């Protein structure tokens, strides 16, 4: 018990800490992480919250700032493109874009079939090179004797097995 704890501790210090805090590992990982500050309001594209907490574009260029000033006047003066630009400043995706489905299901299905097929190949290899012989009770001679015995015993004579056998003519109906 104590020795295994010492072993775990030794592994932690000697191996894992060295690996996890090595400069190269940290540097490689730092590039994939997008640090999101969850303590301030976030933008989201959700069907059930039509008005997110903050607009999509926070840092406006000079041109966008001018547009925002124009928005404060009468909206009839805005051209169609300006209205669209203002919309895209506040929202990333429109409802239609949010609802749009993707073709991902085709890739998923293709992957599923591919790996099912691959598993089939593995099972085939097993059948040939790993599995032993099938039990002797599945050989045709045994099955024949078995079937005759079932008919003699009148297995399921009303609707089932023996109902298909003609006992007068001694053959299948």
């Amino acid at each position, binding site marked *: 018990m104590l020795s295994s704890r010492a072993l775990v501790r030794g592994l932690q210090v000697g191996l894992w800490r060295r690996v996890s805090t090595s400069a190269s590992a940290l540097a490689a990982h730092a590039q994939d992480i997008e640090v999101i500050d969850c303590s301030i309001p976030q933008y989201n594209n959700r069907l059930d919250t039509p008005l997110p907490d903050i607009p999509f574009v926070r840092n406006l260029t000079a041109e966008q700032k001018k547009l925002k000033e124009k928005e404060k006047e009468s909206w009839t003066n805005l051209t169609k493109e300006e209205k669209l630009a203002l919309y895209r400043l506040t929202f990333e995706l429109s409802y239609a874009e949010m609802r749009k489905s993707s073709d991902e299901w085709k890739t998923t299905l293709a992957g599923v079939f591919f790996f099912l097929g691959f598993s089939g190949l593995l099972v085939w290899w097993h059948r040939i090179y790993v599995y032993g012989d099938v039990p002797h009770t599945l050989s045709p001679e045994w099955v024949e004797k078995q079937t005759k*015995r079932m008919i*003699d*015993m*009148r297995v399921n*004579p*009303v*609707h089932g097995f023996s109902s298909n056998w003609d*006992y007068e003519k001694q053959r299948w109906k």
Partner: protein
Amino acid sequence: MSLPKPIMRGLLAKRLRFHLPIACIMALLAGATFKFTVAEPRKQAYADFYKKYDSMKDFNAMREAGVFESVRPSGE
């Protein structure tokens, strides 16, 4: 810009009022269909089978075939 106020309450009750009777009727129909397509024919088939069933004849046939352990075929 004056739209009529939408219905805010009783939406589930309204839906249930419509769909619950239908659900009950479908359940009853399913039961009745099964009874008259599966259960009754099966009972009839068993009744017909056993009306003309000679158990002694069948027993002797089985005995001769040698499936019993308590009675061997009459030849042995």
